């Protein structure tokens, strides 16, 4: 697609429920990133994929969070047993490649706003 697409744009759920957030990156982009952003804060790194594999998942806060990218394109962020503290905007981004220089320019989606009641 022309840009990074995230669905749903808004999700309201109850504490303890399971949630899936989907990201469709720019076609041909090999790297895909998930960030979490709370109000008034900068994006907090969660995980990034290089192709199908998670290259760095050091930002996932605990084992309730899991992400997959089975075919190297679309990714799903899964949150089990949601807690009120999980409420945030979840941002997805993609980049054409991961450069050895670290000069990776990210293209972001509009985000999925998650509210846990």
């Amino acid at each position, binding site marked *: 697609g022309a840009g*990074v697409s995230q669905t749903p744009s808004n999700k309201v759920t109850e504490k303890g429920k399971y949630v899936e957030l989907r990201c469709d990156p720019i076609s041909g982009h090999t*790297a895909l*990133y998930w*960030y979490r952003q709370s109000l008034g*804060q*900068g*994006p*907090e*790194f969660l995980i*990034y994929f*290089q192709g199908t594999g998670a*290259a*760095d998942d*050091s930002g996932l806060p605990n084992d309730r969070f899991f992400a997959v990218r089975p075919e190297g394109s679309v990714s799903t962020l899964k949150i089990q047993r949601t807690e009120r503290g999980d409420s945030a905007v979840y*941002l997805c*981004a993609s*980049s054409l490649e*991961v450069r*050895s*220089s*670290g*000069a*990776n*320019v*990210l*293209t*972001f*989606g*509009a*985000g999925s706003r998650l509210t846990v009641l």
Partner: protein
Amino acid sequence: SQQGEEDPQALSIQEGENATMNCSYKTSINNLQWYRQNSGRGLVHLILIRSNEREKHSGRLRVTLDTSKKSSSLLITASRAADTASYFCATPSGSSNTGKLIFGQGTTLQVKP
């Protein structure tokens, strides 16, 4: 943990004035990027400056990088109401081969018409 820290946290200016935002970081880097975020939207890449560059321009944007002080600044000249947004610096984390990009807390800029 955040690598970059921006200041000020918030900035309010009149249209036509210049806006300067600063970013400090902790570890050695190969490059530094600036992104912009309009309210309720995703981030948009503005400019990337490499560690061997001291200054870079793009339209009304001017970015400087001082690796000895581990700091960068973003200057927006002749600001417009449409420049109202949050601005974030971002740096690679850890080794140079990583794709992981760490963002600062951001500066919220308000440009009054």
